[in-house]
């Protein structure tokens, strides 16, 4: 990769270096977007053609055009926007709660062997408790209002961040730890200046996974007696065999995946620029 980026050796191009580099970067970004949309576009086209030819059942698998129509219809009635807003709020609320707790506990358990010993086994066990099985308990304890939904989502969002923060901290180079000890860092400074930055790659990965899980958690959470939300829209549409709407939901989910991913990547670029790590070739 680096080979092709460089101006060919021999060209006296040091002055132009900056300019071309910028151009190259923007060209690279374009290529990146192009390459990234290649697969989805191909899949969509194939899907539409196969659907039109009747090769795949349009009942189970409505063509992209029909899905688009359904989406437009939903958007026009305002249904889509309302439901999306509610879902985003829920997912973000659950994510904020679960992720911040996960981060806090992950740091606590990562930092202190004592808390690790006391808490980690329990947390690991709770991690393995399936959402679907304990939904009634959630309702019993927290009702069917927003609380239980947000909590259920938070439960899902907790673990990826917990485990990634925990493992990220345990991956911090001991030699840098010694430096902070020698320099007399307070606990707080140790966390803020060493542990968080060093574990940041892992934490950001945890954020990515957590965001995805919170979004997925909507489907289960919005089964628990709700009258709005994308998850509700999807399950409702399924009950009434309105497949295009289910697919609209799926598409929204998918685009959310891309969006949250892009966001975290942005953060990565911003916060991890100090890294000099492998970029693929």
């Amino acid at each position, binding site marked *: 990769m680096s080979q092709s980026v460089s101006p060919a050796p021999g060209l006296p191009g040091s002055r132009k270096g900056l300019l071309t580099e910028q151009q190259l970067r923007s060209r690279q970004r374009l290529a990146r977007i192009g390459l990234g949309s290649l697969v989805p576009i191909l899949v969509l086209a194939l899907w539409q053609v196969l659907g*039109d030819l*009747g090769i795949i*059942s*349009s*009942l*189970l698998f409505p063509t992209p055009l029909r899905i688009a129509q359904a989406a437009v219809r939903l958007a026009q009635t305002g249904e889509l926007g309302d439901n999306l807003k509610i879902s985003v709020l829920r997912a973000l609320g659950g994510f904020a709660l679960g992720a911040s707790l996960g981060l806090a506990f992950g740091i606590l358990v990562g930092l202190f062997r004592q808390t690790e010993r006391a808490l980690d086994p329990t947390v690991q066990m709770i991690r393995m408790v399936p959402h679907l099985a304990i*939904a*009634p*308990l959630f*309702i*019993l304890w927290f*009702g*069917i*209002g927003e609380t239980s939904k947000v909590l259920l989502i938070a439960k899902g969002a907790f673990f990826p961040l917990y485990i990634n923060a925990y493992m990220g901290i345990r991956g911090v180079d001991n030699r840098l730890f010694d430096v902070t000890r020698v320099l007399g860092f307070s606990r707080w400074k140790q966390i803020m200046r060493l542990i968080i930055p060093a574990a940041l790659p892992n934490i950001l990965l945890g954020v990515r996974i957590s965001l995805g899980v919170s979004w997925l958690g909507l489907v289960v959470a919005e*089964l*628990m*007696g*709700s*009258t709005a939300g994308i998850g*509700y829209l999807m*399950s*409702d549409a*399924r*009950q*009434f*065999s*309105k*497949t295009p709407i289910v697919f609209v939901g799926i598409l929204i989910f998918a685009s959310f995946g891309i969006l949250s991913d892009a966001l975290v990547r942005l953060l990565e670029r911003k916060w991890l620029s100090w890294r000099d790590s492998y970029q693929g070739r």
Partner: protein
Amino acid sequence: GERTISTGAAPTSSGSNSGATKASVPATLSYGYIGTSKLNYPGTAEGWGFYKGIIQEELKKYGITDIKLTAFPNGPDLSESLISGRLDFGSLGDTPAILAKSTGAKTRFITQGTTDSIGYLIGKKNGPKTLADLKGKTVTTQKGSFHHRYLAGLLKENNITDVKIVHMLRPDAEAALARGEVDAMTNTGVFALKQIDQGYPLIDDATKHPNLIGTSATVVSEDYLSKNPDFPKIWNEVRLKALNDLKSKPAEYYKFLAELNNSTPELMEKVSPISGIKDVPFTDDGIKLLEGTKKFLVDEKLAEKDIDIKQWILKP
């Protein structure tokens, strides 16, 4: 691409002799039903027939040697499987069957096994006691099922408009009701009785509204019918045989049901009496119920399109 109109003509040739079609009949048949159990059998006559091997024995004569049974948690799952071609036929509630049909699923309705699915409306403790009390309250139901149809019909009949209907699966709804978060819920059979036992008030049940009783539906995919046009006839015969056998040993049958549902034979006798199982594919009452349900679903815009029940039903 909707091409549903012309297909009505296809099964008219069902009178042809069975010997001729035997060769082309696929050896495997896959059947879907609702309900999870350790035995992997449905209830009613079909289940009994499979359980006792009667159906297998009979179908063998028609060249069907391998029968696959698959349990589904919900009607929509089963409908989707039928559409996808993974199932040849299946039994489910009338409401999900109609809903699927109205979205264009290519199925034919061959048997209406029971016409006695009773919905119960259970209130929370110290909550609403009568239908009138429900005004402005929240009621949960499993949308798209026969209890949904029962609840909505009930409210409409009584002109109660401002009720919030929330979709919830049964275990979730029971928890919400216990907590008092919702004011009432719909429930079925064993579970409703259990709740009544625990002191939850019964507000209403479908026995008081014969037009709101649910029925069951056995539907076959058109795809399978084209390969085995005689199937409706065969099936109904076979089913009848199983039903007759079942009627001769009721105690054993209820024990079987109890095992399926992790319950007791006594309770089973109460909620799923043998008398409810019909020995003819269709009764006029049953069809009337079906028409009523369809009309309701269409009127309420729950179903996408109107369908012609007469066209859908395939009488052998």
